[in-house]
């Protein structure tokens, strides 16, 4: 069956007419080029505080709310004297919630809602963990799993779209792979850690504690962190700033940051003109 599905995927992939490749020049040996490209990805993320911020929020989210993989079987067994049936029901709940959540999200058109939904689903994701941790009966746990699945899938899709929508084609593969590594890496570490911690800390505490902490941190960030507040309010990153890469022929390296479209963050951008744009774009060469 797996072969059949793979054959289908190969068939559909062959129908892709689009030709696309990033801007990484390919003259150097593969390994050296890849290593350099990786460094470029880090520099790109480092040079853009808003991308960095979203990746940090995603890392926190994965760390505090997505470690349930190791905890749910323990909750089913120790919390409710249940067996694999209850655990399977939780997993199906998470999967179904994710399916419904992402399908619902696909009807959202406005980019403005992206930021608000990011906040809402982030808070819901944390709250769902609290719900699951405090659930008095198996039914409540399964309901919590459905909400968890929906909120987490939507949160991850929204954060990925926020970042992808502003990334230059040349460097998208490198930055998104860092995003994937951060998300997957923190989650894996926390799954391992919480699994080990469940030997000494009650599993319910391990579920609702980090969930509540994430709710508090995200609420605090949304209230106090100007950049995060702006991302949530506008549903878009950058707000006029762009990171420029050298042309493909020159290696596609990150060279400068250009402020356009009403940037007010830098003195050099100058006052806004009557058209709401700076009189002259501020170009900052990057080291």
């Amino acid at each position, binding site marked *: 069956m797996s072969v059949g599905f793979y054959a289908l995927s190969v068939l559909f992939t062959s129908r892709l007419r689009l030709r696309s490749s990033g801007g990484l020049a390919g003259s150097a040996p593969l390994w050296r080029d890849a290593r350099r490209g990786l460094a470029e990805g880090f520099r790109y993320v480092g040079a853009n505080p808003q991308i960095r911020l979203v990746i940090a929020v995603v890392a926190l989210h994965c760390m505090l709310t997505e470690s349930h993989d190791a905890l749910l079987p323990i909750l089913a067994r120790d919390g409710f004297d249940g067996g694999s049936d209850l655990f399977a029901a939780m997993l199906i709940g998470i999967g179904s919630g994710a399916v419904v959540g992402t399908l619902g999200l696909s009807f959202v058109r406005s980019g403005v809602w992206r930021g608000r939904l990011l906040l809402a689903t982030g808070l819901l994701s944390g709250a769902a963990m609290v719900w699951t941790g405090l659930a008095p009966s198996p039914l409540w746990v399964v309901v919590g799993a459905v909400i968890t699945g929906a909120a987490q899938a939507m949160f991850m899709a929204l954060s990925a779209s926020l970042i992808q929508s502003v990334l230059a084609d040349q460097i998208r593969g490198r930055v998104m792979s860092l995003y*994937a590594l951060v998300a997957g890496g923190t989650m894996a570490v926390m799954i391992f850690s919480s699994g080990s911690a469940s030997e000494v800390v009650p599993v319910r505490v391990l579920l609702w504690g980090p969930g509540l902490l994430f709710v508090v941190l995200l609420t605090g960030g949304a209230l106090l962190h100007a950049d995060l507040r702006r991302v949530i309010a506008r549903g878009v990153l950058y707000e006029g700033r762009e990171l420029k890469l050298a042309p493909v022929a020159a290696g596609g390296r990150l060279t400068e940051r250009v402020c356009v479209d009403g940037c007010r963050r830098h003195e050099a951008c100058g006052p806004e003109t009557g058209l709401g744009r700076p009189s002259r774009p501020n170009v900052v060469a990057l080291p």
Partner: protein
Amino acid sequence: MVSAPALFGPIARDYERWAALLSFGQDPRWRATLVAGLDLPPGAHGGDGLRLSGCEFRSPRGVGIKHGLEGLPLLREQILRPGRMVGVETALHDPMLLKRLQPLRQQSGRESLQRARERAEFAQPAIEVADDQQHPAFPQDVQRSRDRTDLLRLVDPRHDWALSVQFIRSRLAIKVASTFLAIHFSQLPHHFPAMASSDYRALWLASGASAASMWAMIMARAWLALELSDSGVVVGAVTFAAMAPWTLAPLAGALADRWDRGRMMMGARVLQMALALILAWLVLSDGLALWHLVVFAAATGLAWTLERQVENALLPNTVDPGSLLNAITLITFANFGSRLVGPLVGLPLLTGLGRVGSS
């Protein structure tokens, strides 16, 4: 006025719910188009079953499209009146009925439709079926009708015309299928703007199929590891071998920025297919060893990592920026949906092959 719930009964209500869910609320429009596809004579009125029964069925002539045998008696009793023409489409598959309708199957096309109208005896079985409510076997018929998909048209004999079964089964079936598909795809971009791009559609389908195979593979691998070792630690080790290549994601991302992404994706998927084929051959020839499984898990994980990073990089190129959120959520939906579908399809297969049962 007949209320819809009373008309359709519990089975049909389930059907309506599923139809609405699976068609994203488009089923009334589809059915209306289906009725329009019948090319009814002047004065005929079309619509879906709900509307016909509840609101719009006021014209002297009407055609209702109705799924579910249980609605027939009620339809006859409360809706069919002399002078009205109602065709009822149902999921019934009755051998006796088929036999009696056999002569009509020889006819085809619209000319035969006219001839079929003159054959009142054609509709007699429909009456028998409709009157079968009191028959002890009725619940079983209803139950069977849920599982059968053959479409027949049952027509009340009191009306002055009938529809040819051949017409329904050949031309209409083709028309319905093509209309469904046409509407389905023409509506997709309206609700899901990302689907307007053919490249995105291909990417979406490929991604869903690939994810389904991956999840089926994960499940099968775990069972095979358990069969071979009877040890949870080994199952964990095999799973770890599959996940470990994820640490190479940044390298895969860098490669995605260097080479043609479409070809890389194709390469990764062909590699996974080849690995699955070899694994299947080893299983069927009883030559599978534990180390094979670990190596296959690592290689598949590597290809999967590459595929995911390339897909992430390629995705925004396939749609316009305004549809990016839609594109990402639909891909995520496909992946999560496949996560449910892959094991759901795979588990019965595994059981059928005796791989689960023997463990």
